[in-house]
């Protein structure tokens, strides 16, 4: 705490009460909204909300009414509601503000507040709430308004409507694992007499019955649990690619055919246990790798950023309309803080539009009547009336999505270490199998088939197939603990390969909060303040704008003359006074040393130096350190949508080899990345806004840096919590080291294969050796990768499981 005054914290939202304190029942609140929520909860006996976690609420300062009028529209309703009859309706909302146990408590007890709500069920990890409500007692709009009133506004966007949530596809994997596990366990049990060489004696029919039961149990393992590997291999071969699925599928098929042959012909007991165990372990590996972060969405496009609907004005009548039904020529009303849904012409109102999310420019842009306002901007100054001149899909911003990088479906298997290896592995495996067959053809004809199939069975690269999923899966989990969320485990490997880093500026390496300004020097009189404000207001330089905002004077004075010296400062004659604002050099005074991340703006009035404004640039913590470390191994580039006013500062931070480009449009960025990659660079792009969406998608690895990971972020491979930015070099190094772990575990599994092959080639492989070797090699690899990734994370100070 810098100030000495005691900061009062709002009982509801935990924010510091800057604008006065509202006391109620010995509790302090920061605003009427927060207090109202408390009163509502108190009235309904739900104050446990505040006992489960401290100050769990969301600040209620910026809540607007009338926002949900469009929910009265039956077309919109039918898209949101999943099921309804004449009594109840059921739907599922995504509620980004679900963040703690108190949230679950309040939402699930909300029926105590509103009679119309039948039940609420929260899924914390997905940040969703399934709600059943009584349609006779409550409308959809009332429901949403109630949620918004207590701080849990559902996320309703164009993306959510029209898409009904499909059943969890993960379930199939669970069924497969369940079946494989069941069969594996029972086959082992039934094979016990065989393992221990127990004599079933005269009752030959027992061992026959056991063999047939085993064969029966291996049928569902092969056809149901193992089907993905068979199909995967088939798909890979059709694309002329030898993926890891190919040797696996060969092994599975050979195992199954040999089992059938041996058991049906009565010549042996087959390798049913090996088959079931193999599939079971493989599926476990797949399950381990498949963990996803459900509350995060890596596939968002502009649709999830735009609202569902907008108010149209027709002869003074306001009607809400779904955005995808907007037509050119429609008149629309945009309220304060709403997003402009389509390129339109400004008809009425004071447009002061914040494009920071779209173009990366920091300062809101003022638009005059008759000008075109681009979709995606957020109005910050009162209501506007606009006339739509382009459809949403054809707007300046959304056009980006018609670029073919968005159409391209990237195959995650291509080029991975595992795929590269399995190609060679498969050919060598086949070569060994055929040489063994030829060898025995010459020396002992009876062993040909046995040796050939044994090679294919024992060399089935189960351990190999497990090493990548476990190492990458562990790495992904550990990184997730550090709020560095990967879209899939394969991204770890991609990150290990990168050699070029490209940063966006606004919101990525800068923080979203406004820069901190302070003044030092002689006390400024009221007149001085007005003079400085008026002078600064004449300049459009971002620093001048900030100083003007900082002093916050509304008075005006006559400006007699004004001159701006680019990169130095401004001079103005105002009401007979001479005002100079600028660098020390500009004012001809000695420069004061400050850290390189802040700028000093000196002031002189009538040739007397008054003092200086210190503007601390809001670069992320440790940015210089991050840049220093990553520049050792990577080429750096900066693509900013902003103007180049900060270039000198950034030059100090970035190495001289780095390429800094400013005023880049979204498509410029996309093109730049594509060109880098055309020259064989593996690019990792860091961005945050819609303007980076194209570049993020085009890049080998796209990272979206987000202050609040549950809010919108453009589609990317990684979503990273902005507060973790300073740890970036560690994350990159961790990914590289994880690949090292994979290489070692790969050698381990090869060693096991060589042992197994020596049995197979010599034609002495028995079911029991196969049944021992296969699980042992798998468990070794799983154990090794898990321990190694754990130790790595520990050594590198990365939070781990």
């Amino acid at each position, binding site marked *: 705490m810098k100030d000495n005054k005691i900061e009062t914290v709002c009982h509801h939202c935990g924010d510091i009460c800057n604008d006065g304190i509202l006391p109620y029942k010995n509790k302090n609140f920061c605003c009427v909204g927060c207090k109202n929520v408390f009163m509502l909860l108190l009235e309904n006996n739900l*104050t446990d909300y505040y006992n*489960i976690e401290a100050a769990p609420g969301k600040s209620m300062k910026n809540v607007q009414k009338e926002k949900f009028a469009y929910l009265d529209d039956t077309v919109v309703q039918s898209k949101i509601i999943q099921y309804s009859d004449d009594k109840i309706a059921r739907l599922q909302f995504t509620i980004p503000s679900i963040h703690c146990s108190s949230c*679950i408590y309040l939402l699930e007890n909300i029926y105590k507040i509103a009679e119309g709500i039948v039940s609420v069920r929260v899924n914390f*990890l997905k940040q969703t709430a399934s709600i059943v409500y009584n349609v006779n007692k409550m409308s959809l709009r009332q429901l949403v308004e109630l949620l918004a009133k207590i701080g849990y506004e559902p996320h309703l966007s164009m993306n959510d409507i029209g898409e009904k949530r499909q059943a969890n596809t993960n379930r199939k994997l669970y069924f497969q694992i369940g079946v494989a596990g069941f069969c594996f366990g029972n086959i082992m049990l039934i094979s016990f007499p065989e393992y221990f060489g127990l004599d079933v004696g005269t009752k030959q029919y027992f061992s026959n019955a056991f063999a047939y039961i085993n064969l029966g149990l291996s049928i569902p393992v092969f056809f149901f649990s193992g089907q993905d590997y068979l199909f995967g291999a088939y798909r890979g071969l059709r694309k002329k690619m030898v993926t890891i699925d190919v040797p696996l599928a060969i092994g599975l098929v050979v195992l199954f055919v040999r089992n059938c042959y041996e058991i049906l012909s009565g010549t042996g007991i087959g390798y049913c246990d090996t088959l079931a165990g193999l599939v079971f372990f493989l599926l476990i590996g797949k399950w381990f790798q498949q963990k996803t972060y459900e509350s995060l969405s890596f596939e968002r496009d502009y649709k999830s950023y735009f609202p569902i609907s907008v108010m149209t004005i027709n002869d003074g009548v306001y009607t809400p309309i779904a955005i995808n039904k907007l037509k050119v020529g429609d008149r629309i009303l945009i309220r304060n803080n709403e997003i402009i849904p389509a390129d339109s012409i400004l008809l009425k109102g004071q447009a002061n539009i914040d494009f920071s999310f779209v173009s990366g420019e920091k300062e809101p842009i003022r638009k005059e009547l008759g000008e075109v306002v681009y979709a995606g901007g957020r109005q910050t100054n009162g209501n506007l009336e606009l006339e739509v001149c382009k459809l949403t899909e054809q707007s300046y911003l959304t056009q980006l999505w018609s670029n073919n990088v968005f159409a391209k479906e990237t195959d995650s298997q291509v080029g991975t270490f595992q795929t590269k290896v399995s190609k060679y592995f498969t050919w060598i495996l086949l070569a060994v199998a055929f040489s063994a067959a030829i060898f025995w053809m010459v020396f002992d004809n009876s062993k040909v088939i046995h040796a050939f199939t044994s090679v294919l069975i024992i060399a089935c690269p189960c351990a190999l197939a497990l090493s990548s999923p476990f190492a990458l899966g562990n790495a992904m989990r550990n990184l997730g603990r550090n709020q560095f969320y990967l879209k899939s485990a394969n991204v770890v490997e991609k990150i290990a390969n990168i050699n070029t880093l490209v940063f966006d500026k606004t919101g990525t390496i800068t923080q979203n909060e406004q820069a901190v300004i302070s003044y030092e020097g002689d006390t400024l009189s009221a007149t001085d303040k007005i003079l400085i404000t008026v002078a600064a207001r004449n300049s459009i330089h971002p620093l001048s704008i900030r100083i003007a905002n900082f002093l916050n004077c509304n008075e005006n004075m006559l400006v007699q003359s004004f001159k701006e010296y680019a990169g130095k400062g401004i001079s103005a004659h105002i009401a007979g006074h001479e005002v100079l604002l600028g660098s020390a050099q500009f004012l001809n005074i000695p420069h004061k040393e400050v850290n390189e991340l802040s700028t000093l703006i000196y002031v002189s009035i009538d040739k007397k130096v008054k003092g200086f404004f210190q503007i601390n640039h809001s670069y992320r913590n440790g940015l210089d350190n991050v840049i220093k470390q990553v520049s050792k191994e990577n080429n750096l580039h900066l693509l900013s949508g902003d103007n180049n006013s900060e270039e000198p500062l950034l030059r100090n931070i970035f190495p001289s080899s780095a390429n800094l480009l400013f005023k880049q449009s979204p498509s410029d960025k996309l093109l730049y990345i594509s060109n880098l990659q055309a020259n064989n660079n593996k690019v990792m792009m860091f961005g945050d806004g819609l303007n980076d969406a194209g570049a993020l998608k085009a890049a080998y690895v796209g990272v979206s840096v987000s202050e609040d990971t549950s809010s919108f972020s453009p589609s990317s491979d990684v979503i990273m919590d902005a507060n973790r930015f300073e740890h970036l070099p560690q994350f990159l190094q961790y990914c590289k080291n994880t690949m090292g772990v994979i290489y070692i575990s790969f050698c381990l599994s090869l060693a096991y294969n060589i042992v197994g092959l020596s049995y197979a080639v010599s034609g002495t492989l028995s079911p029991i050796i196969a049944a021992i070797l296969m699980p042992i090699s798998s468990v070794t690899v799983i154990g090794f990768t898990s321990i190694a990734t754990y130790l790595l994370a520990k050594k590198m100070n990365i939070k781990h499981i």
Partner: protein
Amino acid sequence: MLVLIGCSFVLAVGFLIAFIWMVKSGQIDDDYTPSVRILFDDKIKDDEQ
């Protein structure tokens, strides 16, 4: 003896069916929220002011 094997097998199939039933009813879809939910007390009315 075959009867015993049959019995053990029926038992095992029973567990498999239970597992499938569990997955179908959505018990594995959310592995976090129930752990929190169970700790909420049902409050008796008007115990505070």
